[in-house]
């Protein structure tokens, strides 16, 4: 039986950095059907409990759009972005309870195809206090290139030590 889920790359930050890239240099193998990225992050941005996280592929920041639906402290809302793929509250930040990191799952089907690339993100921030959020994001990269790298960048601050990301390749046969 084929191995369906294969770990492509794992990163855990040993120090702060502005963003995290999986498949740096365009090294994501083109042998799977779908990709799943599991991310757990925290930003050092002060005065905030959480920050949004922006997704880009292949280092390209053009032709992106997204919608996010979220519920923060039980109050729902949604946002539309025409030039970015923002995932609301994708990482905790400096004002969150210490040692709390986000829980974040990105799914990209058919990442090697010559069609535009759609994605889905589920994210949650739990804080054992006020300002907790769940979020769902739909994103589109209107580009026909195969995805060879994925970069997550916090809206404010840098990702701190122990932020982690695991990229899996999924085969459908």
């Amino acid at each position, binding site marked *: 039986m084929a191995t369906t889920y294969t770990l492509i790359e794992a990163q855990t930050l040993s120090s702060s950095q502005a963003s995290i890239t999986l498949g740096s240099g365009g090294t994501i193998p083109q042998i799977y059907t779908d990709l799943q990225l599991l991310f757990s992050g925290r930003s050092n941005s002060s005065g905030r409990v959480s920050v949004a996280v922006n997704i880009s592929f292949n280092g390209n920041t053009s032709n992106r759009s997204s919608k996010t639906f979220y519920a923060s402290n039980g109050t729902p809302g949604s946002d*539309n972005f025409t030039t970015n793929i923002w995932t609301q509250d994708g990482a905790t930040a400096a004002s969150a309870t210490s040692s709390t990191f986000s829980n974040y799952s990105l799914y990209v089907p058919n990442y090697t195809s010559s069609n535009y690339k759609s994605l889905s993100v589920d994210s949650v921030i739990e804080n054992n206090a006020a300002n907790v959020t769940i979020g769902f994001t739909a994103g589109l990269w209107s580009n026909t290139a195969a995805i060879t790298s994925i970069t997550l960048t916090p809206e404010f601050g840098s990702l701190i030590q122990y932020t982690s990301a695991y990229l899996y390749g999924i085969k*459908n046969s």
Partner: protein
Amino acid sequence: MAATYEPIATFTVSTAQSSYTFSSIPQTYTDLYVVISSYEGSSGASLGVQFNGDTGNNYCYTFTYGDGSGGTGSQKGNNAGSIYVGQINGGTVSLLNINNYSNTTTYKNILTRNGATAQSVFTAIGTWQNTNAITSLTISRGGNFTVGSTFTIYGIKAA
């Protein structure tokens, strides 16, 4: 190491069609997971799921969504002819979880996540009010799935 996550079947639309059925689903897994990727360039269409060819009003669902412009909502459908699992509009990804699909004691639940970049972000829970094991799953929409749309079903083993 036991394989806990296995592909059962996959299908890519080569000629526009309004539905696709996974048939003869093996009864050897614990849960099912379905991934749908599609694109709609004109107007949105509803996406529905039925089991075992049951077209009766034996389904119910509850969903919540955000339209991306501040708007949100939730609705419920009772005695419906299918489970509403979201919209196809723009680039769309649908992820469906079906737990304990092979038992013959309980009604079957489905948990869905749907993101349509030109319309809404959506999540739903649905129930098929039938105790039969799920042996087939039909996904349908208003209008046709575009060429290149993909459907994949995975089986998940608990042990």
